[in-house]
């Protein structure tokens, strides 16, 4: 039995795709067409059923509590916005700069025994953005700007090293590259961009998180170098030292200790303190192979996880659980670690080993207290 050819118009009407003329025409058609009338009724009924799905509302007390939590969290984050806000309010007080300048002049002209360095240090107590010391290599293309709640350094091409000191109240700093961004966690590091790709991220102190488009976030610790596209440049075994031929040639260039582009409101540092901490610029093979233990590109981590997962898929849950445990021991920082920890809980439940599953659940929560599946795992522990 063929249905009315105009039946599509019923859905189009519902989605607001018809013109006034078409609507009128459909209205006339509906008075005579049983197919289209039934379709219209069916679509309305589906909408009605969807709206009637149970959806309990929280009580008033919970709502108030959530509201307070939200405002408290927003307030905590707002600390980072205070810098620009101060700038804006300063614009409104147009007369203030003149007064401040006059006072500053008086301050500088007054006789004092205070060393100049201390005056610089006093000024540094009012930072409006993170203290960032940029050391760009020759020819590097970059820009630096302040967006609403963060300071952005965008490197388009070339190599640049950064030393960042953030204090409470400083803007968050994000280093953007053409294919991703690097979140700084108070550190010194260098980034090299070439042909629109992040070729390497070297961390000298502290740690950074590298987020490249289409890849899992990669944490890079001090004394490590992350080369996300190394596999593309030269197909190397995981144990191949990172200095292998084929690495971007500019990486061999010595790190410049040129004058910083700017060091706003921060303690003045001599060139020596701007240079990265003394460490071999090229990681030894053992370190290179363990860029953050398992980088996403590291076949050993990926293979280990995929082997464990395939065991689970094939129904060999016992072996899968063992392999997951081994994976977690070997690659605790791998991006798959949370999945592995969660799957292990499920596997142990499946094996009917509740006490082991509870221990695994405790381990998951200790490691990923705010993990994606933390709430699920908490249920394993609930009586």
């Amino acid at each position: 039995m063929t249905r009315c050819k105009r039946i599509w118009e019923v859905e189009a009407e519902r989605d607001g795709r018809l013109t006034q003329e078409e609507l009128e025409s459909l209205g006339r058609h509906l008075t005579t067409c049983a197919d289209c009338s039934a379709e219209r009724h069916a679509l309305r009924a589906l909408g009605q059923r969807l709206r009637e799905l149970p959806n309990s509302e929280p009580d008033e007390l919970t709502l108030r509590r959530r509201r307070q939590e939200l405002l408290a969290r927003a307030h905590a984050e707002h600390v980072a916005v205070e810098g620009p806000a101060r700038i804006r309010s300063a614009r409104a007080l147009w007369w203030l700069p003149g007064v401040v300048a006059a006072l500053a002049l008086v301050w500088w002209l007054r006789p004092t025994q205070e060393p100049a360095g201390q005056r610089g240090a006093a000024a540094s107590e009012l930072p409006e953005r993170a203290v960032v010391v940029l050391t760009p290599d020759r020819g590097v293309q970059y820009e630096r700007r302040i967006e609403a709640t963060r300071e952005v350094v965008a490197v388009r091409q070339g190599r640049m090293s950064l030393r960042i000191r953030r204090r409470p109240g400083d803007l968050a700093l994000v280093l953007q590259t053409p294919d991703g961004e690097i979140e700084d966690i108070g550190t010194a590091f260098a980034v090299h961009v070439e042909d629109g790709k992040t070729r390497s991220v070297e961390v000298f102190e502290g740690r950074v998180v590298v987020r490249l488009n289409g890849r899992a976030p990669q944490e890079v610790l001090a004394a490590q170098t992350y080369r996300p596209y190394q596999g593309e440049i030269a197909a190397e075994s995981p144990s191949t030292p990172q200095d292998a031929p084929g690495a971007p040639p500019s990486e061999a260039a010595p790190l410049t200790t040129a004058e910083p582009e700017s060091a706003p409101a921060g303690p003045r540092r001599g060139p020596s303190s701007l240079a990265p901490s003394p460490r071999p610029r090229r990681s030894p093979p053992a370190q290179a192979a363990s860029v953050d233990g398992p980088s996403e590109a590291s076949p050993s981590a990926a293979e280990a996880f995929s082997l464990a997962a395939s065991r689970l898929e094939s129904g060999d849950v016992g072996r899968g659980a063992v392999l997951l445990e081994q994976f977690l021991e070997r690659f605790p920082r791998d991006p798959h670690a949370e999945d592995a920890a969660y799957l292990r809980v499920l596997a142990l439940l499946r094996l009917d080993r509740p006490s082991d599953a509870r221990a695994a659940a405790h381990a998951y929560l200790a490691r990923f207290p705010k993990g994606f599946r933390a709430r699920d795992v908490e249920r394993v522990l609930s009586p």
Partner: protein
Amino acid sequence: MTEPVLRVPPQVIEETDAEALARVARGELGALGVIYDRHYLKVLAFSRRVTRDAADAEDIAQETFLTAARVAGTFDARSSCRPWLYGITARLLMHRERALGRVSRFLGRFLHHAPEPAASPLDAMLGHPLRDELEQALAKLSPEKRMVLLLAEVEGIGCDEIARSLGIPVGTVWTRLHHARREVRKRLERRPR
């Protein structure tokens, strides 16, 4: 004799969403409370319908408003910010779905049978499927289709507005809606009430 009192009703000037968000962007966080009071329940309900998990839904709803506070300056002064908030929620939900999906794909063989749609992999593992057949049919939709269907049919947002909020072409919204309705109806027809 008392003189008649002229009673003038107090003038109520309600701040628009755009004005409240502009204040949030200026750092006046009290205005975030205004936005919360107006839209939180709706955002939470949408989040619950998509996730089918009360705790996750609350987290996502909370995160939606925090994100809104961060990007308040980008609000384009529509009359209501609710579709804009839904757009933020949808992005957060997609992030969650992707994370859950990574694990869910291992569960089929793991459980020796295709898992029934459940609120989480753990529920699937423990054999706690969704009871309602319509919820099951919804759960089997891809998250993209599920969100568009819920926004259109439950929240009553127009296709143009959905497209704008999710940052996709309106044609994509129509296509997703069409397929979502067809898939849900097919599943419901297979399992008559």
